């Protein structure tokens, strides 16, 4: 008899629960597809980006951020290989017909562009910050989830101009001969001239070069106040900083997004003190941002063992935020959720408060040109803000 009561109680509870949430069952599904570089040489970021994006979309479902819509996230590994990534893109499009896609690289963004524009017409973001993809004329469905590399240089140069002394500041650009390295340089030269900053040196190396003796000697000759690295992750930034310290130069070193994670402080040890750079996002340990606190709370809930998430995780999370915001705006305007409508609302996003995950976001030309300058605190092993959010011009 007791069994019967218990069963009846369970059944009625289940029935009640089903009645209580009729909206959930009827929710329209918004499919988000992703080709993530989970293996290959970009895996260090790909795994974290994937986790961040997936987590935010799950959270959006839990909190019903877009009433009446449920996000379905499907992803595949694309191995940081353009051909595999294109195959992955086509496979996901054919199998799941998503309205939003995420891609692994600049290469994929360029390779898929002709078909994205003419056939697929889905909202597309990627791990790339290349300024080439931030052009609504040639890439009407793509956006950059943050500033482009050019914008990041803009933020750094702005910071240098604001903090200059009596003399004209001298800057050197130190970059790799890859697309990643060369992307912002033409803009950076122009912007430096506008801000009255002298570019005394441009040093180009192979990506991941290790022997930097001759490059450091060049720096010694021109003795710049700042060196800005672009197109590297760790190597040769670490080697250059050590070698210039040995020469007794007072130069300050700066990096952009990929060389602004905790890893570089760990590698440099005490030499990291004073290393600076631009990050479009707040750090996982930021105490002042409610958006980051929500992220920490979510992580605490689903994987309590994790105490730190890298910047790429936040990059994925923020991309998820933009996706959800775009869908929310399209739904609010009572339009069908299609790639075309999603891409059209991008540039209506103005002064959008992301809860401190980034500065207030305004999309112009499908990118949000805002970032913050951070300085490494070697003792604590963290990056601390050295400026407020700066908007690139």
């Amino acid at each position, binding site marked *: 008899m007791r069994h019967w009561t218990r069963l009846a109680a369970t059944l009625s509870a289940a029935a009640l629960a089903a009645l209580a949430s009729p909206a959930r069952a009827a929710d329209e599904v918004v499919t988000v597809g992703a080709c993530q570089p989970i293996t290959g040489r970009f895996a260090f970021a790909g795994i974290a980006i994937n986790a961040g994006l997936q987590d935010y979309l799950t959270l959006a479902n839990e909190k019903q951020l877009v009433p009446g819509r449920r996000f379905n996230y499907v992803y595949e590994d694309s191995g940081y290989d353009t051909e595999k990534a294109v*195959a992955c893109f086509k496979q996901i499009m054919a199998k799941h017909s998503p309205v939003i896609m995420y891609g692994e690289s600049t290469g994929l963004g360029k*390779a898929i562009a002709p078909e994205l524009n003419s056939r697929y017409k889905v909202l597309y973001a990627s791990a790339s910050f290349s300024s080439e993809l931030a052009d609504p004329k040639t890439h009407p469905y793509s956006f950059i989830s943050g500033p482009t590399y050019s914008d990041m240089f803009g933020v750094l140069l702005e910071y240098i101009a604001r903090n200059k002394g009596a003399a004209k500041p001298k800057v050197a650009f130190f970059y790799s001969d890859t697309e990643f390295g060369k992307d912002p340089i033409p803009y950076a030269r122009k912007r430096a001239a506008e801000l009255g900053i002298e570019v005394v040196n441009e040093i180009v190396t192979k990506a991941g070069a290790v022997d930097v003796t001759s490059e450091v000697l060049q720096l010694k000759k021109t003795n710049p106040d700042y060196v800005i690295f672009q197109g590297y992750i760790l190597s040769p930034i670490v080697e250059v900083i050590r070698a210039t310290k040995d020469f007794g130069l007072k130069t300050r070193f700066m990096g952009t997004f990929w060389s602004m994670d905790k890893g570089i402080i760990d590698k440099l040890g005490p030499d990291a003190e004073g290393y600076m750079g631009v990050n479009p996002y707040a750090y996982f340990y930021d105490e002042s941002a409610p958006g980051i606190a929500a992220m920490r709370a979510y992580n605490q809930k689903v994987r309590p063992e994790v105490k730190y998430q890298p910047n790429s995780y936040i990059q994925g999370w923020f991309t998820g935020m933009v996706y959800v915001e775009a869908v929310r705006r399209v739904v609010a305007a009572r339009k069908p959720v299609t790639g075309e409508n999603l891409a059209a609302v991008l540039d209506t996003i103005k002064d959008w408060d992301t809860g401190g995950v980034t500065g207030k976001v305004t999309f112009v030309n499908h990118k949000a040109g805002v970032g913050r300058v951070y300085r490494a605190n070697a003792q604590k092993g963290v990056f601390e803000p050295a400026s407020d959010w700066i908007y690139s011009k």
Partner: protein
Amino acid sequence: MLIGNYKETYASDEALFRTPATRAWMAVGALAALLFPFLAGDYLLYLADLMAILALGALGLNILIGFTGQISLGHAAFMGLGAYTTAILASRLGLPFWLSIPAGGALATAAGMVVGVPSLRIKGLYLAIATLSAQVIFEWVFTNWTSVTGGIRGLNVPPASVAGFRLDTDGRIYFLIVAVTVVHFLLASNLRRSRWGRAFVAVRDRDVAAEIVGVNLFRTKILSFMVSSYYAGIAGGLWVYFTKVITPESFPLSLSIQFLAIVIVGGLGSVKGTVYGTIFMTLVPEVLKAGTGVARAVWPDAQSYLFPLRDVVFGLLIVVFLIFEPHGLAEVWNRVKRFFSLWPFAK
């Protein structure tokens, strides 16, 4: 059981498709290839196009390595050279594909002639390093000759068109790619039966002996390099119309290595083997990917292990396979064929 096939002329003995059964299968294959784009989805068509292009490029390398016994680590660079020539002619001068692709092939041929010169003096590993320099030099040119190649950002190429009909989808370009590839495969099969083809094999088997019987070593080796890079150049041209965008990062050293792997896995010196090798190298990773997809449904947390594991499995497959069949997939295929045609009298 087939006990043999009767031939009355030398011509029929030398024919490409010797038995009625082969001819029938070839017809079936041709029909299947024609119908494929109407039946397959985007994803399969993309893979088919990609495989046809890779097979064409790999065939070029097989002529050099498998037929002539020379080695090259710069094959991707020749493909890049053909691709850039085609892309520049198509995007800047607006040439149609039937001019720009052969032009790419021609320039790659000329470059192959130059790069092949050291092969007269150096062999084996030394030649591998000499050809590696071609890879490095061409890659550098693609990256740094910005006014012509578009530098690191590369070039966008308009789709090929035939009489106003734009070949702008994978299904449409399929016909162009497959037609060009099939013609070049037939050419290579014929090349092997010709005087030059026999000279290639003679040089491969023993160059001194070849010279004694009257094969001009220098000319033969250079010709082999030229044919090889011509194939790569044509493959590059097709690749441009297939992807419609070209950057220097499209033709890395790893692509040269991939060609090498296709040739070795498929079977050195085997035209058919090149096809098998390409299918193996392209489809097995995709099949493994589908496999991890199934495993992920059962065991969702395993993705962080499964994805990297796939590469390990792929690598192991190649190693195991080379140990058990050093003559490549072509030989496996022959064995299977023999088994069925002799069954039940032999095993």
